């Protein structure tokens, strides 16, 4: 049974080998490597995303919003009170720890509606009536010493219109107690400017913070303010303001495909809430948006750079290999010299001698030219070697004997025979350009602010403090890895497909 299957397969195979065209055979061989196929589609996806960057990004990549500097990735909620709902977000807020002055970010929950009893009297404010609900909260801080003595550090009320997630309990219990016993917190209180003097010479074992709900102030849409206060307040039900994620909304203006002006975006949120999928950077710009815009640089620089390098390499390598003699000598010595300087050293030298303060499009062109200048020597050496061996083949000698012009022999007879190598080598050398651009931009010698590029975005993460507090700034690096990996795997797949053995020829 198995043998029959095998013979059937063999028959089909030999049939295909005989009657399929070369392109079909190549495609057949290429389809065998799954990783290369996946990489191919990943790259196609990336290129589509890069082209549609304006439509896909919720915010303008160049507009600063210092209020939300270093905002972490926004949490998108799908459940509310255990029930599945359309995706929504809460507003976020930067909190500065009053003791350590460390900045952090948290969701702020604003009350949207409230229902409860006060002195057995029902009150209810529904979502469509309420403009804002403020809470007046009393905070008492007590320190306890080892001999049981109590020191009151603070007793203040503050009015807030939002709560943090871990403060929610105050609505139902009206009283939240926090106890700190660890050395770090106690020392922080002891060292603080506000309370430190009260704790001098005392041996503190714990700090207790007590929050109580003093009163609720509801401002309705008709500008009436209702104050509910007293110790008998009991809240039965409340809801928080939710900001749903909206699809296909109109916001900032961009040019689709670089020409068609448009304001349509795939997603965004209402009012002044923000949805940062990958967080925000130092200037409060959306990292997700900037990654999309940066992908345009990284994805295009490789293609254009390779195109320039390979035209140069084919041209110079072809001439050098075909004519030989003094041209060959001169070119080969030049390539040797260029290849003797460590690549990245030459790269930054070339960049540094060229003007720095020029428009971003010109910087981009300069980068492409510099990267191609580094790349052409090795390319033309390989092409030269191939031309030297192809030159001795019969069909070239026949073409020479027929008296064809030399230019025609090089372009029509010799160079087409290097196509296979050129396609594979081009795919495998694209990562070099992507990494070169990223490295230069990282050093501040490439694409400059406010333009976006993956390397430039990583430059922000060089600071140890920033990197420890905003690790999402490292995300562009993963996109570099995925892109480079995809090109590597695609190149490997192509090389295997072009290998005559895999074609079955």
């Amino acid at each position, binding site marked *: 049974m198995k043998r029959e299957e095998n013979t059937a397969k063999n028959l089909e195979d030999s049939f295909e080998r005989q009657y399929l065209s070369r392109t079909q055979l190549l495609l057949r061989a290429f389809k065998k490597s799954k990783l290369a196929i996946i990489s191919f589609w990943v790259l196609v996806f990336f290129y589509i995303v890069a082209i549609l960057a304006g439509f896909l990004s919720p915010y303008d990549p160049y507009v600063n919003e210092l209020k939300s500097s270093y905002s972490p990735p926004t949490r998108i909620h799908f459940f509310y009170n255990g029930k599945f709902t359309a995706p929504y977000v809460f507003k976020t807020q930067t909190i500065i720890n009053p003791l350590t002055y460390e900045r952090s970010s948290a969701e702020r929950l604003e009350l949207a509606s409230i229902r409860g009893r006060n002195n057995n009297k029902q009150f209810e404010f529904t979502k469509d009536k309420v403009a804002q609900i403020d809470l007046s909260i009393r905070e008492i801080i007590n320190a306890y010493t080892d001999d049981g003595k109590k020191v009151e550090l603070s007793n203040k009320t503050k009015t807030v219109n939002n709560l943090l997630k871990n403060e929610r309990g105050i609505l139902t219990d009206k009283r939240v107690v926090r106890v700190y016993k660890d050395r770090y917190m106690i020392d922080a209180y002891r060292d603080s400017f506000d309370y430190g003097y009260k704790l001098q010479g005392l041996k503190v074992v714990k700090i207790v913070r007590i929050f109580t709900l003093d009163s609720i102030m509801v401002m309705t849409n008709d500008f009436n303010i209702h104050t509910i206060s007293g110790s008998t307040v009991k809240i039965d039900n409340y809801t928080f303001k939710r900001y749903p994620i909206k699809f296909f909304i109109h916001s900032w203006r961009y040019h689709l495909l670089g020409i068609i002006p448009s304001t349509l975006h795939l997603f965004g949120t209402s009012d002044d809430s923000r949805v940062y999928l990958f967080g925000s950077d130092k200037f409060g710009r959306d990292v997700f948006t900037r990654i999309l815009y940066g992908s345009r640089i990284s994805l295009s620089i490789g293609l254009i750079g390779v195109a320039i390098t390979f035209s140069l390499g084919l041209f110079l390598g072809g001439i050098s290999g075909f004519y030989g003699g003094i041209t060959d000598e001169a070119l080969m010595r030049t390539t040797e010299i260029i290849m*003797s300087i460590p690549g990245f050293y030459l790269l930054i030298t070339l960049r540094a001698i060229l003007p720095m303060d020029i428009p971003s499009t010109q910087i981009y062109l300069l980068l492409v030219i510099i990267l191609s200048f580094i790349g052409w020597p090795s390319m033309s050496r390989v092409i030269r070697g191939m031309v030297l061996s192809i030159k001795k083949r019969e069909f070239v000698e026949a073409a020479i004997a027929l008296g064809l012009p030399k230019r025609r022999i090089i372009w029509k007879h010799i160079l087409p025979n290097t196509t296979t190598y050129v396609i594979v080598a081009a795919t495998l050398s694209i990562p070099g350009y992507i990494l070169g651009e990223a490295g230069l931009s990282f050093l501040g010698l490439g694409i400059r602010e406010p333009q976006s590029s993956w390397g430039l975005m990583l430059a922000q993460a060089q600071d140890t403090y920033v990197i420890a507090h905003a690790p999402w700034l490292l995300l562009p690096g993963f996109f570099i890895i995925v892109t480079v990996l995809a090109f*590597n795997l695609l190149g490997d797949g192509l090389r295997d497909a072009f290998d005559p053995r895999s074609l079955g020829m």
Partner: protein
Amino acid sequence: MLKYIIRRIIVAIPVLIGVSVLCFIIIQMAPGDFLDQLRINPAISKETIDKMTHQFGLDKPVVEQYFMWLKSAVTGNFGYSYSYRRPVSSLIWSRAYNTFILAITSLIFSWIIGIGLGIFSALHKYTAADHILTVLAFIGLATPAFFLGLILLYFAARTGTFPITGMTSVNHEHMTTIGKIVDILKHLFLPMLALGLIRLVGIMRQMRGQLLDVMHEDYVLFAVAKGMPRNVVIYKHALRNAINPLITMFGYALASLLSGALIIEIIFSWPGLGRLIYNALLEQDVYLVMGSLLISSAMLIGGNLVADILLAWADPRVRLR
């Protein structure tokens, strides 16, 4: 063998001269010179600038300037660094030494671990461990060195176990000799890891491929057939032959490490050649740029030479040619 080495060194001289000419042309193309900063400074008189222009030979034609520089470079004098106010040669040697330490340690690290893992994954072909190593290798090959550096920086910043900037601690001068060495090693660890891990995966894949190829050779099959212990076959017969192409890689790795080291040195503030040339470029310190480009090229050519010599030493077939 000696003849071979001498011939290679002699061939390298015109290349180095070519490098210096190329560097000189590139730098001459740059707009302005390093005296521009002084010219806009009203506190410095025109006479002083004229004197300095004359002293540095900037008033002479470009070709003459080049030969002046070349003449002194041959005697080991690479000129005077303007921004550091020190002779370029002493500056470069101390920095080149630091880069060399970084390069050599990461080279040793990546080679020992890389070859070990390569052998391991070849001997455990198609097991889970091998697959994991293969996936890691592919990811590693796609990771830019500076990104790995940043990730290491992130973990160092979070855990605080390793120092992250410079080469020595503030109180380095007051340490004992052993303390000094430990201090430098501590500072060296992260940049070395960042540089080494990137190299490691390439070596690992190469080693795995080579060893698997050699395992199918007739002499290995024969050794197995005659009943030799497995370890002897692997380590004495297969490995010795599989490692040859890697020896060539070793020399070239030394050369390409220089390029990789540049960004790592900048991220970790390692006082090496890469950082020196980066700063020199920003300051338009011509002689410093020339000197460091030339020294780094010499190191690259030297690395290639070492590669060829190592190969000739390991493989008699190369020597006979």
